[in-house]
């Protein structure tokens, strides 16, 4: 495959829709919860019954502002909701209430570090605006019919539109991961692509290196993971480069990512080029923000990942990989900090979180917030390991039981009788027994064949059901063999 990046430069701008974590919808009191039976979370307003009117959800505004502050946006103290008019069955009013030429925030930035690169790149973000979600059209439920579920209609969204500042698929991925992390820290969204609370449309064009004008862009839709964004951008870039190289002209159009084939194809023309006839929504007066309110919000914003990372590096001396792992999510970082402070050895805490804890979360698919073993309890377990009361292996078993039983480390260790044995006479007795059971290996070991140490230690450990302190076993082996 041709490496087009030698000749052409990729130029990408991303439009990210993020569902705000409010209890109710953007313009009515209906629950914004995900997963209810179809059309249960609806009312005259979100069903667009005749005569119903929208009312702005103040909590949605608060979350949008938090996001804007976290992304260093300039807040517009006056913004305007506009109607974006188009017909679609899952758009009940025949228009979407959005913000158009007066969004709530403009000019943000996101500092991005692409994996494998040392320098960071500040990506400019054009705007952040508020809008409502549409409902869902279900095409595969009834033959030859489309079902409409309006539970999602009116759920609050923010749309974050970047400048065409992104220069590679990997950088697009880094932008998205950083954005997701910041929004999660700001507590404004669940930012889950799987659940649809974060959606990405990517604009991409190609141009010769050194060119100053932008090439014709296409919009890639239907990408449902960050890696799919990266792969689809790469594919679309290659398609455009090949066309340019043949002297063809790239057409501005919408491309659909086909994840199963790993290809992009043009959307049917119906899916594009609307005249949305935007105009200010006469049902909603301009949104006027009190500067004091915005200032107060600025102060309530928690530490953002970049600051936290710096603090953890200084305070706990973690390396980059450890920092990546423990600051990936705000709740994970808080958990880590809890364990590190209670236990004292931050490296041990980080290691455990990257190993056992990560595996456990992966296995159950739960987030750290719902994880049964809380930070102080994990710290207690790590204390026992450090104090030689539990072997690392036994600690793993204790951890597993703590997860299922909710009991503390000392209680579980006692119940499982796995507390590490450091008592010399007990260990010596196990060694004697192993020597008796493995006469051949024992005599060769006695004859000086040191490589058999491992086999014998293993046998002792097994006999002790993992409870023997392996350091002591090692030390005592030669003495007993005498």
């Amino acid at each position: 495959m041709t490496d087009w990046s030698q000749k052409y430069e990729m130029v990408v701008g991303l439009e990210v829709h993020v569902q705000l974590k409010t209890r109710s919808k953007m313009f009515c009191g209906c629950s914004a919860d995900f997963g209810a039976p179809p059309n249960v979370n609806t009312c005259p307003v979100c069903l667009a019954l005749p005569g119903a009117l929208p009312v702005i959800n103040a909590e949605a505004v608060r979350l949008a502002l938090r996001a804007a502050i976290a992304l260093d946006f300039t807040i517009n103290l006056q913004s305007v909701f506009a109607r974006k008019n188009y017909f679609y069955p899952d758009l009940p009013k025949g228009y979407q209430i959005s913000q158009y030429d007066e969004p709530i925030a403009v000019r943000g930035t996101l500092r991005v570090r692409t994996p494998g690169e040392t320098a960071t790149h500040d990506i400019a973000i054009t705007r952040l605006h508020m809008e409502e979600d549409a409902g869902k059209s279900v095409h595969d439920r009834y033959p030859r019919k489309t079902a409409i579920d309006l539970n999602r209609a009116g759920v609050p969204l923010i749309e974050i539109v970047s400048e065409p500042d992104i220069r590679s698929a990997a950088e697009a991925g880094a932008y998205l991961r950083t954005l997701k992390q910041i929004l999660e820290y700001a507590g404004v969204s669940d930012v889950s692509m799987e659940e649809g609370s974060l959606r990405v449309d990517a604009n991409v064009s190609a141009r010769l290196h050194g060119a100053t004008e932008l090439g014709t862009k296409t919009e890639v839709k239907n990408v449902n993971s960050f890696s799919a964004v990266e792969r689809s951008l790469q594919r679309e870039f290659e398609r455009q480069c090949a066309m340019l190289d043949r002297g063809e002209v790239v057409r501005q159009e919408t491309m659909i990512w086909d994840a199963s084939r790993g290809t992009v194809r043009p959307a049917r023309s119906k899916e594009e080029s609307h005249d949305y006839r935007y105009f200010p929504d006469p049902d909603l007066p301009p949104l006027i923000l009190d500067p004091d309110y915005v200032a107060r919000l600025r102060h309530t914003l928690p530490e953002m990942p970049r600051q936290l990372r710096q603090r953890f590096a200084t305070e706990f001396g973690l390396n980059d990989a450890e920092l990546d792992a423990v600051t990936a999510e705000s709740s994970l970082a808080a958990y880590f900090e809890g364990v590190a402070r209670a236990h004292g050895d931050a490296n041990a805490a980080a290691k455990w979180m990257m190993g056992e804890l990560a595996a456990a979360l992966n296995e159950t698919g739960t987030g750290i917030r719902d994880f049964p073993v809380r930070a102080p309890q994990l710290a207690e377990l790590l204390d026992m390991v450090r104090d030689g009361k539990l072997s690392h292996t036994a600690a793993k078993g204790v951890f597993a039981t703590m997860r299922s039983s909710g009991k503390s480390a000392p209680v579980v260790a006692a119940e499982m009788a796995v507390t590490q044995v450091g008592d010399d006479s007990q260990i010596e007795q196990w060694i004697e027994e192993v020597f008796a059971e493995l006469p051949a290996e024992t005599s060769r070991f006695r004859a000086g064949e040191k490589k058999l140490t491992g086999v014998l230690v293993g046998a002792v450990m097994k006999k002790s059901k993992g409870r023997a302190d392996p350091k002591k076993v090692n030390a005592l082996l030669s003495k007993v063999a005498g």
Partner: protein
Amino acid sequence: MRNIIDMTNDAAVRAADPQFGRDGLNIVVATNHESSLANAERVALAYGRGDAMSLPGMAIAVKDNIATLDMPTTCGSRILSGYVSPYEATAITRLRAQGAVVVAKTNMDEFAMGSSTETSAYGPTRNPVDPARSPGGSSGGSAAAVAAGITEIALGSETGGSVRQPAAFCGVVGVKPTYGRISRFGLVAFGSSLDQIGVFARSVRNAAIATYAMAGGDLNDSTCADVPVPTTPEPVEAYRGRTLDGVTIGIPTEYFPPSLDADVRARCDVAIEVLRGLGAKIVDVSLPHTELAIPVYYIIAPAEASSNLARFDGVRYGPRAADVSDLREMYQATRSRGFGAEVKRRILIGTYVLSHGYYDAYYKKAQSVRALITRDFDAVFASGVDALFTPTTPTPAFKIGAVTDPYEMYMSDIFTVTANLSGIPAISLPIGRVGGLPIGGQIMTRHFDEPRMFHVAAALEAALGGEAHA
């Protein structure tokens, strides 16, 4: 208590009388006798318990574009045939809390688009004063309901004069409150920045009581203002018979053009002299941008309507065309069959003026001119004028079918649209008849100055006495 139920029953019987139905004056499009009586019984019980009410047992008729639970709300359109709202308009809930009982839904121009009640899917309403004539529109059914004595009070809605013009044509009082005075929640939207629920009544006093009963902030309508509402009925009572000493009334020259119907002018001149006689200081004033009001209105109202009416798509309610092969055809067939000619005309105009490349030239420009029209009023009121007096309409009621040119029809709103564009309150009251046809006089005041408006209107009404209807 018995009295309340009897009053409701009498009104409900009148509302169901065939002379007011489709084959008669075509005023009433729906009734629900059983439900009206049940509501009357509830009111009677509460009233008997001693609940304070400003309208105990008052039967009201309601324009077919205001959501009611017990009767359909169809906006005079096929596209909503049979539609019953599962929720009730805030205005209705508030009136019911004051003891009013809805006995009828009334005919209207389809989606309130018209000035004659001729565009209704139910066919035209006839003017009780002269059945060959139009009651005006779009709230012609409600104006006629009060004129015909079906109810003492009726609700209409205004976007460009749809209460005041039919009030003038039918010889009753018609109020368009300040934009934001009464919640629009449950009023089916036409031009959202102009729409306002209005009141018809036989007297200024009752119009004021009903207006105040509905007024006040509403959490369901962000454009509804939380401005203190005067208590009723005391202020209105106090105005009756009092002179207008110290009140300055402006006469805007633009509302008395040379083309004004001579009879209308003569009646207005009499009313102005009566106002002067009551002690008012009469001054000539100018509202220089008045002539731009109709073009501005016919850009803004259709633009908003084209968007407001998009929800009538056959997907969630109303009839849906079935003999279609795809979504686009469904939309086309449903809306082509569901909407009448005038509604389609306005959707087309509105869609056009909002289109990419035309927005600035039409909608945006119209909004700028609208601001100038509002500034005209602000300047006059700032100069010390308390109220403006004008004719309500350029002519008395025209004959059904007589006005066929849409533009000519639009011009019948020329004296009323300015209050909608600027949001100020306005009232039309009968100031006499010519050849048996009622003539309406209009009083406009500052934003939220309904008390002054009712004051002047009540004083004029009292001074004219029987003259108003002679």
